[in-house]
Each structure stands twice: as structure tokens, then as C-alpha cells.
């Protein structure tokens, strides 16, 4: 269980996190989404006492993190996989944490095997690790104390597609056994496959939160035509709200049949007409976070398969 109540953090005169309240329940995976610089990392650092909120309160497992007698045994943390001593061997980095929190040394080998770092990798110094290997070491570190809560900041960074699939399976299993997971990402595609709930943060504020279905209350239609100007005109005449989407497509806030009738009335030939599915969430993500300090440009790229049709 993770709860925050109106936590706010300022750095100088800039407000990094403003009035953020949320709750992550046991048995669920919560995706914490937002562009880089939106306040995800700062929020997570406040959860684990590395940073103090100026106002508001963060609670983990019913109390303040710093009041947990041995937090490493109840809360697994991966805030930055690069935050390891470059001159320390991978196994040793885990071993000193295992000793700190009082778990047996064999647990280190179990975790190394679980995350797929073999004997050779475990003996190498962390400075020689690839980002993906550091991320795996970070997972091993987070799981070392067999925790009830996982707090992971951008854990998919540097993982290959196979590693991403593995991570999703791991988090799903962890939640299914009653664990609480909070993971952040700046990429919707990384979390929507595994998250039960999502929170979207932009400009330091929670812009939306809820289950995937709750966030997708408005569905839409993706439509594509050679005569884009004609299509726009036809949709406008029909009074349909339209948003530009990737690859000269349009996202229309209406059912496919309504869009088809509008196109017919305008005499426009459609190349493609399909329910938007994830595209609505994608657009929501961009719209909600566009006010953020460093929001990405509203055009989507190939990382988002919903709009490019890479996946069904």
C-alpha cells in the first residue's frame, strides 16, 4: 500500500510536484506516466525519504517510510539503475545490501539467476555493465529483501523487448501474490500492457488517474484518406471533433459508422477506418501532459504502435 496526500515540493521558486495525491492498493500494478521532468522521480524520491515534501504526507504500508525499522525487507526500490559504484562487482553490490538488510548471502545468487545475470556478469564491475545489465541488477536489488511493495522509476529503460516481456511477467506475478507495484515511465506503451491503474502526471500535477477503462471513457475512430483536406472539411461539416494523428491520419471523437457517413456525405474515399482503441489513451496522455514544462511534441513516433498500426 502506497498513499500520498497532497504532497508538494518546490525547488527554489519552481514547483516540481504540486498537490499530488494517490493510492496504490495491494494486488495492483500502478503505472505512473508523464514526460521527462513532469515530477515522477521527485514524487518517488519523496515516497522513500530521500527527499522531504514541503507539505503533504507520503505513507507506505501505513506509515512513513523512514519509520520502517528495516525498509529494505518490505519495500523494493529501483530509482536509478546507474546509481551503483562503478568499481564494485555486480555480486558484491548485491551482497553488501543483503548484509545491510539481513538476508542470507544465498539470496544474492537466487536473485542473480532470476534476473539473468550469469556468473561472468556477476563478477564484472558495474562500470562495465550495459544499461540493460544495470537495470537487471537494479531489479535484483529491489527484490533482494522479498518486499511487499515495489517502487520502480523507469525500470524498462535499456531493456530489450524480451526483457520488457520478462519484466511485465515479473510485476504481474508480484501483484497477483498481493504485492503493490508503482512503476513510472515516460512511454505509455511500456506500462499500459501491465498496469491495472494509471496516473498521468504533467507539470508536477496529477492530470488523470484511474483504470484503463476509466481513462478511456471517450472512444474514437482512426480514419485515413488520400484527400486529407476533403476529409477535414467533411468531418467539420458533420460537426465531429477531430485531432491530427500520426501519418496524416485523423482521430475523430465518434463511432466509425458516424465517421463513414460524414465521409460519404463529403464524397471522400477512406483508406482506413478503425476504432481508435489505445489511440484515445495516447492522445489523452499527450493532451494532459502538454502543459508540462518539457512535454514532448504532440506528434507521435514509431514507439507508439497504436497509431502506426504495428499491433492489433
Amino acid at each position, binding site marked *: 500500500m502506497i498513499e500520498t496526500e497532497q504532497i508538494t515540493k518546490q525547488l527554489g521558486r519552481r514547483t516540481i510536484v504540486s498537490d499530488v495525491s494517490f493510492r496504490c492498493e495491494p494486488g495492483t500494478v500502478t503505472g505512473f506516466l508523464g514526460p521527462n521532468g513532469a515530477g515522477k522521480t521527485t514524487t518517488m524520491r519523496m515516497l*522513500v525519504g*530521500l527527499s522531504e515534501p514541503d507539505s503533504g504526507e507520503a505513507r507506505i504500508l501505513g506509515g512513513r517510510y*523512514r519509520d*520502517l525499522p*528495516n525498509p529494505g525487507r518490505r519495500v523494493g526500490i529501483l530509482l536509478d539503475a546507474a546509481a*551503483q*559504484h562503478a568499481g564494485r562487482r555486480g555480486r558484491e553490490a548485491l551482497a553488501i545490501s543483503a548484509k545491510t538488510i539481513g*538476508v*542470507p548471502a544465498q539470496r544474492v545468487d537466487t536473485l542473480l539467476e*532470476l534476473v539473468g545475470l550469469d556468473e561472468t556478469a556477476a563478477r564484472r564491475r558495474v562500470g562495465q555493465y550495459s544499461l540493460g545489465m544495470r537495470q537487471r541488477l537494479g531489479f535484483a536489488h529491489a527484490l533482494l529483501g522479498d518486499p511487499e511493495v515495489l517502487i520502480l522509476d523507469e525500470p524498462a529503460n535499456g531493456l530489450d523487448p524480451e526483457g520488457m516481456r520478462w519484466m511485465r511477467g515479473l510485476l504481474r506475478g508480484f501483484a497477483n501474490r498481493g504485492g503493490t507495484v508503482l512503476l513510472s515511465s515516460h512511454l505509455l506503451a511500456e506500462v499500459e500492457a501491465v498496469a491495472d491503474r494509471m496516473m498521468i502526471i504533467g507539470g508536477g500535477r496529477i492530470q488523470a488517474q484511474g483504470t484503463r477503462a476509466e481513462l478511456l471513457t471517450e472512444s474514437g475512430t482512426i480514419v485515413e484518406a488520400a484527400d486529407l483536406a476533403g476529409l477535414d472539411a467533411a468531418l467539420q461539416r458533420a460537426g465531429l471533433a477531430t485531432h491530427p494523428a500520426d501519418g496524416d491520419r485523423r482521430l475523430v471523437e465518434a463511432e466509425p459508422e458516424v465517421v463513414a457517413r460524414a465521409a460519404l456525405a463529403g464524397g471522400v474515399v477512406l483508406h482506413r477506418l478503425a476504432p481508435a482503441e489505445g489511440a484515445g489513451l495516447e492522445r489523452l496522455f499527450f493532451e494532459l501532459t502538454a502543459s508540462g514544462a518539457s512535454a514532448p511534441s504532440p506528434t507521435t513516433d514509431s514507439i507508439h504502435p497504436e497509431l502506426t498500426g504495428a499491433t492489433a
Partner: protein
Amino acid sequence: MSTTTLAASTPAYGAGVHARPGLGRLAAVELRKIVDTRAGFWLQVATVAITALVVIVRLAVGGAADHTFASVLTVGALPAAALLPVAGILLVTSEWSQRTGMITFALVPVRSRVLGAKLIASVVLAIAMLAVSVGIIAAGVLVASPGVDGTWSDAGTLIAQSAVYLTSGMLVGVAFGMVVLASAPAIVALFTLPTAWGAVASLSLFADVAPWLDPGRALDPLLREVVSTTQWARAGTALALWMVLPLLIGTWRITRREVAA
């Protein structure tokens, strides 16, 4: 990656979930962190090797009569005296420069406990290094000047004084690391500030206070001679300025400061 589930691979080790890690365990971890990195390991190896080299050179020059334990200790303790503070600095600053502080302070959120563990580990390392240095010096003296009168005079007292010298020197390093929180600037400050201070203190204006505050003049006698009460008092005042004050500032800083992102 393994598809083994956690449940299947997790051994039973329920004890300790609600027990705060003891200070002794934390100190053992900090001691291990001094020597388990590449830089830390070779720093300790270098300290022992240079000590051996210095002792051999010292015993190779002059007659057997000069080779008392006391005279060899005066130079034989210097490598440890110079390099232990560097280990002390790195013990603190690596948490920031290598960013391991995010792990250390997340696992032990009460930061003063981490600092306490680091101080204990520093004292243990300084005493261990003293034991190694004394062992090398004693072995050298045994070989080079067997049976010379007064070879071992004052040995016990001088070893005790060296313990104070090396331990406080290491803690000065830890303190500088805690104040500066960056490896290179802390090491530069450690080696230049006392010298700069010595230059300023040599002005006649400071003639009265210099012996009490200049670390070189106040502390170096500990390695050379059996010190008087006044000399102890001078060592004490110099350590208050160079060790205790930065330790307090550093503790205040670390327990309040945000741990770097």
C-alpha cells in the same frame, strides 16, 4: 532471463523483517565498502606496500644504533597517516559521486546511523592499519638491529599515540568528505588547507595560537616523542578545529540535505 517465479525461488528467512539493522552490522558493511571497490582495494594495498618500502629504506641507511623502534615508527607510520584520510574521504564522498547514497540511505533512512557506522568503520580500519604498520616496523627492527640497547623503549606509549594520530587523521578525512561531499575537492582541501593554514599561522601575529591550532605542529609530536600534557592539550584543540568542527558541520549537512538524484 529465468522464468522462475519468486515464490518458487524464495527461501524462508522471515526473521529480521521488523528488526532494525544493528550498528555493528552497518559498521561491518561500511568497512567492507572501503575495500570492495577497485580504488578502495588498491588504496589499502598501496598503503601497506609503501609502508614496507619506507621501513626498508629507513633501515638501509644509518647504523644499527639509529634503528630503534621509535625512530623507525616516526617515518613508518607516515604512509598510513597520509592515505587513511583519503580512504575516509572516499568512504563518504563515493555515496555522492558514485550515487550509491540513493541505495544506502534508502535502506537505512535514519542517516545519522549510516554516519555512525562510517565513523566506527573508520576507527576499525585505522587501528587495523596501525597493527599492520607496527608489525612491519617491528619485523624490520628485529632484523636490522637485534639486541641494541633501548631499541624498544617507549614502544607501547608511541604505539598508543600513533593510534590516536592515525585514527583522528582518518576521521579528519571522513569529516572533510562529509563537508565537501565530492571526492576530488575534498582530497585537495585535505592536503592544501593545513599547509595554507601553516603558512598563515607562521605570521608573528599568530605566534601564540599557532601551536594550538596548526595540525602539523600540534599533532606531529604524537609520532615522534612521548608527549607532555601541554602537547596533548594542543593536539586536542587542533583536533577540535580540524576534526570535530567539520564532523558537526558534515553531520548537519548530510542529515538535512536531499540525497542527490
